[in-house]
């Protein structure tokens, strides 16, 4: 490694530490054929910051998540995670660096039990993914799986197959999978969609009681939920971020109200 | 095309150079040094032409396979059985009536009808269940293979070439020079030339039908969006049945072609199923153009391989498939 490179790497590290950005997107564009799902998106979220991303359907929010997790590679632009350029990384490398996500439509392992699902999530970000030895019940990972299941109130159905869970329970499991291991930054894709009012307040409680060092981005249509759990808000429209601000500013912004809140939501 | 030239000037240059080299090797007489390395030019040319004709036969079989897969996502592993059945039936008809062309009509209708039955009793009932469809068609191919063995036995059958197509044709390609500077030209069986021309014509017609006619547009729309096709008032099932019948009939006719310039014998069903698989894996699933490209590549690889490296000709075919899978899993012209 040349001296120049070494200096640049150190600079990178210092820069990362200095700005303390958990996630940093620069000029990210994603095309599907001739259609631009994301256009020149630049976004930075500090460590521990909680951000809500709002926008109508088709605004590019989920595509944004898919680019961050690596399900799609961006057509152009760079993505940095905790200061490291991960633009070309496969999804699992990003996850192993502390990124997590939930899905708008639950993507669970229907043939396996709740415990197996959560155990897999814990195993995915630790060593021994190819281990042929069955886990014991007092195994450290098994214990953390149990704790997680308790944390999302699924203790009673731990041995039940996922296919037999109610919709609300599946949504909770979806969140449990994202909390496994030691997450540093989480992407929540409409976690409240389809939940009852009680389940919603449970969700808000889970989100607000996360340790402060864990930052996240939440996509949410329910303004009530979104503004209660977020420190800041980004507004998306037609694949672009057109406004950022504090929840109170966004709520009262006339342009936002016209574009988004005026659409009969509520 | 133009975009490719602009984006990859070096590659374009290489492709043009390679094409020029191949053209020269085909047309001009070879210098002595080259004959010393590659053997007689006549052998090379023969291998190339045999390869292309074999490719034409593979195309006939594989195009039906890829058409059915492209439209309905149906994997019909009994496709080779349709080929073999077409060959046997064609032999019987040609023997009984002496009409070579007549056999094509009869076989196309008969095997096409079998295709309709398959679509009706198997695929329509298991739409979207790829694995089950595949397994059922494997079962059907086992049963058909044994029934055909029962009826026609293990011996091989050769369908006689009609008189008007027998005998050689002189091609305007130089194979070498006689002592006093007289050029020697390549001769090739007329029936093979006819098959080659017919396959190319069929390929062009299929391409035109798919890309330039209303029904073709409908079929291609069905590939991309079945619901849209249904919503537009087209009877999807009707289109499916027609395409299936056509693809099956094509495989049956290919059986006659294969029986004429090779032979028909038990076990050929598997060989041609595999050829179809490899051709469409290499060319790209669901693409007619891809099937043509894949068929010619595999045909050439087999024939050139069997001339220059007899032990490894199969490996050559397989290597092409492995390379395509490694670098372009969707096939050369697949999407």
């Amino acid at each position, binding site marked *: 490694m040349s001296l120049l490179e070494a200096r640049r790497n150190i600079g990178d590290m210092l820069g990362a530490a200095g700005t303390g950005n958990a996630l940093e997107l620069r000029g990210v564009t994603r095309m599907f054929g001739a259609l631009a799902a994301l256009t020149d998106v630049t976004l930075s979220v500090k460590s521990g910051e909680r951000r809500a991303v709002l926008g109508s359907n088709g605004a590019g929010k989920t595509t944004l998540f898919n680019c961050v997790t690596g399900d799609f590679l961006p057509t152009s632009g760079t993505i940095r995670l905790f200061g490291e350029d991960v633009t070309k990384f496969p999804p699992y490398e990003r996850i192993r660096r502390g990124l997590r996500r939930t899905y708008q439509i639950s993507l669970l392992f229907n043939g396996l039990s709740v415990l197996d699902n959560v155990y897999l999530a814990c195993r995915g970000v630790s060593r021994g*993914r190819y281990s042929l030895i069955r886990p014991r019940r007092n195994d450290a990972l098994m214990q953390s799986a149990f704790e997680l299941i308790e944390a999302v109130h699924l203790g009673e159905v731990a041995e039940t197959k996922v296919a037999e869970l109610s919709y609300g329970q599946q949504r909770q499991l979806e969140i449990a999978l994202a909390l496994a291991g030691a997450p540093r930054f989480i992407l929540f894709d409409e976690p409240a969609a389809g939940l009852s009012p009680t389940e919603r307040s449970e969700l808000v409680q889970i989100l607000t009681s996360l340790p402060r060092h864990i930052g996240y981005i939440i996509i949410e249509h329910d303004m009530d939920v979104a503004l209660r759990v977020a420190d800041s808000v980004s507004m998306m429209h037609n694949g672009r971020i057109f406004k950022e601000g504090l929840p109170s500013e966004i709520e009262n912004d006339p342009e936002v109200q016209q574009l988004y809140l005026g659409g009969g939501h509520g | 095309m133009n975009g490719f030239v602009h984006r990859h000037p070096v590659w374009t240059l290489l492709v043009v150079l390679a094409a020029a080299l191949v053209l020269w090797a085909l047309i001009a007489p070879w210098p002595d040094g080259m004959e010393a390395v590659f053997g007689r030019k006549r052998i090379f040319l023969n291998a190339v032409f045999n390869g292309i004709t074999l490719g034409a036969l593979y195309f006939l079989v594989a195009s039906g396979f890829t058409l059915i897969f492209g439209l309905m996502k149906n994997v019909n592993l009994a496709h080779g059985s349709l080929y073999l059945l077409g060959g046997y039936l064609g032999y019987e008809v040609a023997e009984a009536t002496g009409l070579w062309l007549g056999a094509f009509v009869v076989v196309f209708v008969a095997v096409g009808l079998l295709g309709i039955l398959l679509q009706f009793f198997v695929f329509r009932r298991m739409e979207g269940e790829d694995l089950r469809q595949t397994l059922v068609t494997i079962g059907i191919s086992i049963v058909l293979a044994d029934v055909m063995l029962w009826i026609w036995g293990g011996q091989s059958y050769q369908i006689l070439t009609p008189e008007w197509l027998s005998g050689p044709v002189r091609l305007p390609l130089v194979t070498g020079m006689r002592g006093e500077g007289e050029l020697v030209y390549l001769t090739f069986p007329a029936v093979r030339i006819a098959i080659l021309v017919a396959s190319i014509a069929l390929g062009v017609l299929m391409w035109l039908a798919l890309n330039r006619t209303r029904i073709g547009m409908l079929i291609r729309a069905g590939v991309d969006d079945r619901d849209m096709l249904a919503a537009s008032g087209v009877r999807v099932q009707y289109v499916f049945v027609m395409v299936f019948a056509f693809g099956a009939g094509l495989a049956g006719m290919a059986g006659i072609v294969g029986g004429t310039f090779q032979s028909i014998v038990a076990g050929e069903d598997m060989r041609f199923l595999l050829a179809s698989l490899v051709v469409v894996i290499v060319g790209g699933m669901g693409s007619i153009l891809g099937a043509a490209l894949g068929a010619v590549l595999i045909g050439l690889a087999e024939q050139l391989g069997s001339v220059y490296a007899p032990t490894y000709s199969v490996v050559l075919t397989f290597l092409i498939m492995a390379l395509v899978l490694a670098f372009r899993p969707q096939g050369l012209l697949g999407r």
Partner: protein
Amino acid sequence: MAGKARPASDVPAWLVGMPLSYWVVGIVLLFMPVLANDFVLFQILGWSFILGMIALSLMFLGGYGGMVSLAQMSIAALAGYMVAILGTSGVQAISLHWPWWLYVPVAIIVAAIFATMIGALAVRTEGIYTIMITLAIAAAFFYFTRQNYTIFNGYSGFANVVPPELFGINWRRPIPFYYLALFCAAISYLVVVYVSRSPFGLALQGVRDNPRRMAALGFNVVMHRVVAYTFASVIAAVAGILLVWQNAQISPGTAGLPAVIDILVIAIVGGLARPIGPFIGALIYVLLRTFSPDVLLTLGLPGDRFKLMIGLGFLAVVYWSPDGVLGLWDRWRTHRRKAADPLTGQGGAP
């Protein structure tokens, strides 16, 4: 599964949780040589164990990994070939006469490397393409062994390949061979059952159900699939070694396309859902194959229409019971429980 809910005690949980049927089957199999003659032991049961193991390796990939590979017979045959080439056979010019403790592991390793390469190619695409690609690879293997004379001795293959005389026992005698095959089959079965609940096995099932989510949990999905091919190949390779010892010969036809398809038929007829399925399928197949001429003749049909029967039986199974014979069994049990338990109206899963 049942053992997991129990508290830890001095007796190992797996021993306590073992159902009665396991004990019965185990004891019957152990004392089979008292009941059965040499033909049954060697030809029927021995062969069933071997085919069952090859089909088990397919079941592992297909049932847990969602990848139906048709190359498992070729992998087994390669291991068999390695035994003939590295060990001793009737072809003096090729065989290297290595001792058994060297050629057995090397044969397994070579087969595993071959399988890993097949896996690396096959996982480039998904679903139905796997069948097509592995079928093409199996065909390439068959044609290659038939054409290559320097290593695989071409059309005639190798004869006089016999197991080593270990502990002074002739392992090709029916009773020793029966126990050898039973031992290997039982170990393979138990290993698959055990591994299915290990992190590797669980993750493989996760990859089958939802590859995208597995990637989002930190798993390298492609690598996991390839490793599954490697793992399954070990079982197939051991079976291939037993197969070459049983037949005392190996030739291209061992992994010809009919044989390749037969393995699929066995696995599907038995059922891909559980590791016992392939062995049931293999037993049915071997019984049919052995006794079908008699049955066919009594029915007034030609005796050599065995393939027709297999094909029709296979069609019937995939048409009416996609889970194989095991699926039929499960349905019958559920049905009976429903009848016995009118209050809940539910047939609990076994």
